[in-house]
């Protein structure tokens, strides 16, 4: 079955996303999830726009988002399998998790390209 051949690839994406999230996620949450919304720091919009639309930032963002989405999907799949004892629903769970990550990755690609 093709699923067996897919397994190493999703584990690779899981690990890549795990490293990226371990290194960058806490600081991103502090900055964009708390500091800026709550007004602790107030970046100038034009400056922020210029930084985000630089091609290097777009590339990094795309890589970050895709890896994090697949990391999340892969781990959540096993959370449902083991945490909630849902292994008998393996097929729909697999389709929903990776399908969601694929849709998200495609959305990330569009957002980064049309920024």
């Amino acid at each position, binding site marked *: 079955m093709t699923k067996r051949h897919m397994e190493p690839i999703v584990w690779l994406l899981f690990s890549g*996303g*795990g*490293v990226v*999230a*371990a*290194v*960058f*996620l*806490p*600081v*991103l*949450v*502090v900055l*964009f*999830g*708390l500091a*800026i*919304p*709550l*007004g602790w720091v107030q970046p100038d*919009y*034009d400056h*922020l*726009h210029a930084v*985000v*639309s630089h091609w290097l930032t777009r590339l990094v*963002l795309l890589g*970050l*988002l895709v890896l*994090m*989405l697949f*990391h*999340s*999907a*892969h*781990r*959540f799949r*096993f*959370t449902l399998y*083991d*945490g*909630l*004892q849902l292994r008998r629903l393996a097929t729909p769970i697999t389709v929903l998790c990776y399908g969601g990550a694929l849709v*998200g990755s495609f*959305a*990330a690609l569009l*957002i*980064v390209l*049309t*920024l």
Partner: protein
Amino acid sequence: MSAPTTYRQPVSRLWWMKKRTYFMFVMRELSSVFVGWFAVFLMVMVFAIGRGAASYQRFMDWAASPIVVVVNIVALAFAVLHTVTWFVLTPQAMVVRLGGRRVPAVKMVNVAGRTVPAATVVRVGGRVPAGMVIA
């Protein structure tokens, strides 16, 4: 698939509430929900930045609403849990040998702690926090 012929003891759905280490394992796995949440959050933010200053301001006003702030505080807690457990687990999954000897896990985490941007890495005094290792 044929039914298993051997007896399997049914496992309760709340099996992970019985022991601290099991609980930490499930919390670690649950960090995935918040990794996904923040990936989507960032995506919407970048989209809003692309749509102009007014749209960016609307996004930040939404992000400042109490519910979103609370979700992001929880997300931060899970992000830190992920970072700590990830650096604790990596040396166990990845065996590095130097001069025929296995590099001790603590050293690898310390090296990562120095090379990786220091602000994002929580080094618990170079030691493994009790109950964090579930290999």
